């Protein structure tokens, strides 16, 4: 069907024929088109190609991953299940052995810091990666299974005929397929067009802005107490995100650089008239951060939207022969202390692949046949998302991000300051700091509520 695909350059087609065992395969209709070679799309493409389907994987970047940015961490359970010992071949920057949670005011930082050498580094539950490398690697796994990857191709629309989704449209040319897996990412243009989602609302996304700061490998190791391929992940609330609720900041250690950034709520940013670009700079210039990053220089400035909630009833993530996965389906977990997107994307790509392969072998792609996507998601991904959604209103409690952050900071400052005799007891220091600022009853209620929901 490439005869009409003018936008698919000759070079692409040439490359396609070079990597396809049967040079003519691509002239036939594809069983499935996957939109987007990110973690969801490439996982789906890999598994569907392995299941014997003719898969076309389309990516708007010149190379998979170049348009994608995230904080920095991937929880590896899905990757392990699909690829086994991925660490031998996947582009891992560092394995996370050290985790910290920080409360920041403009001058102070209170850290809860946990490092563990209980398991071998490579058995850590998460690792830090660069998407330009990781996504590319994953797309190459899909290609190796026979999926046809075409990059530099923006999908503009679904190809719909008589109300049926027949494929996609790119630069005015249509490409046919029996089934379309939408892994286009957070903007979810096709998902909306295909009726899987309604309009994306400002409250359903967050804005993530990141700076990559160059340090040497030794500097990263020394400043974060790491060695070899050990890595550190930190999440902060309070000052770095302008004390805005449901917002935070992060640090992830790459091999020889550090990712720092801020995740903020666009509704709060707009209402408070705070520029998100300023927040990430405030964070970088915070006294705590300046000392961690001394001598380093910013080498890249990047940003992305993050989905914030599942926008529809999950059973509506399939319609006829059209399935949404990953960020396009709104699959993301933000606990305030963890951000998870890639493992959910891969798990949903896997679920989509299972449903499509089963439908293919039963000879059709009706809604009923693809409905198993929902049951695959319901096995693992959805219960976790629902738990996170229940905890979400804790993240919208402004007292946590401002009042309690200041309270704990002041309490710590007094607790550790000895300026002579007459240092009070712990409880007297606490009640002194709470006086007139925080209601005990309300704080107790907030703590209980956070404990129950999270």
């Amino acid at each position: 069907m490439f005869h009409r695909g003018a936008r698919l350059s000759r070079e692409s087609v040439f490359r396609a024929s070079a990597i396809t065992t049967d040079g003519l395969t691509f002239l036939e209709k594809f069983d499935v088109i996957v939109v987007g070679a990110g973690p969801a799309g490439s996982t789906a493409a890999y598994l569907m190609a392995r299941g014997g389907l003719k898969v076309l994987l389309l990516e708007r970047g010149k190379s998979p991953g170049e348009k994608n940015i995230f904080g920095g961490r991937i929880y590896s359970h899905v990757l392990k299940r699909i690829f086994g010992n991925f660490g031998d071949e996947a582009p891992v920057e560092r394995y996370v052995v050290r985790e910290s949670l920080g409360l920041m005011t403009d001058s102070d930082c209170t850290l809860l810091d946990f490092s563990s050498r209980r398991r071998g580094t490579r058995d850590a539950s998460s690792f830090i990666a660069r998407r330009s490398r990781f996504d590319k690697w994953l797309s190459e796994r899909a290609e190796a299974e026979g999926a046809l990857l075409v990059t530099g191709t923006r999908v503009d629309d679904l190809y719909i005929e008589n109300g049926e989704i027949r494929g996609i449209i790119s630069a005015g040319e249509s490409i046919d397929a029996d089934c379309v897996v939408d892994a286009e990412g957070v903007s979810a243009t096709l998902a909306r067009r295909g009726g899987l989602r309604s309009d994306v609302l400002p409250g359903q996304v967050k804005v993530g802005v990141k700076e990559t700061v160059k340090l040497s490998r030794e500097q990263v190791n020394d400043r974060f107490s790491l060695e070899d391929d050990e890595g550190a992940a930190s999440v902060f609330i309070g000052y770095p995100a302008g004390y805005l609720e449901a917002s935070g900041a992060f640090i992830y250690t790459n091999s020889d650089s550090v990712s720092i950034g801020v995740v903020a709520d666009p509704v709060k940013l707009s209402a408070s008239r705070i520029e998100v670009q300023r927040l990430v700079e405030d964070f970088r210039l915070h006294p705590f951060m300046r000392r961690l990053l001394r001598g380093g220089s910013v080498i890249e400035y990047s940003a992305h939207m993050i989905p914030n909630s599942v926008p529809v009833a999950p059973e509506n993530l399939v319609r006829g022969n059209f399935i949404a996965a990953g960020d396009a389906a709104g699959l993301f977990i933000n606990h305030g202390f963890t951000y998870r997107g890639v493992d959910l994307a891969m798990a949903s790509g896997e679920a989509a692949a299972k449903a499509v392969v089963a439908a293919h072998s039963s000879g059709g792609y009706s809604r009923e046949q693809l409905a198993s996507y929902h049951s695959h998601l319901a096995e693992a991904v959805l219960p976790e998302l629902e738990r996170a959604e229940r905890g979400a209103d804790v993240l919208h409690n402004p007292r946590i991000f401002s009042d309690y952050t200041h309270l704990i900071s002041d309490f710590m400052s007094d607790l550790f300051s000895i300026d002579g005799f007459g240092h009070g007891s712990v409880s007297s220091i606490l009640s002194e700091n709470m006086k007139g600022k925080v209601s005990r009853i309300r704080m107790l209620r907030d703590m209980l509520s956070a404990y129950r929901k999270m």
Partner: protein
Amino acid sequence: MPGAAEREGRLSVEDRTGLDSYEFGGADFIRVDTAVCAGCDTRPCLYVCPAKVYKEDGARNLVYNPEGCMELGACVIVCRHIGKGAITWSYPDGGKGISYHYG
């Protein structure tokens, strides 16, 4: 308030976007009906765009420059629901726009 030493190391948005790899393929992927912006008090685009594609000139007119767009798409969402719906936005053509190395 941070002291003078702590203010050092400030980078403008242009300093930062200047670090990125970018292949500009034309400006028409963002279009703004700035006449509509004249009646917009909230102007959420000014706060959510990390590249400062959207700015106000000396007379508080909204001006925009798609060069440097980091391709979030947050502007169009906040404009539609918090602002006045003046922004039309799509990703740049395939293979064009920003390329991140450390994403």
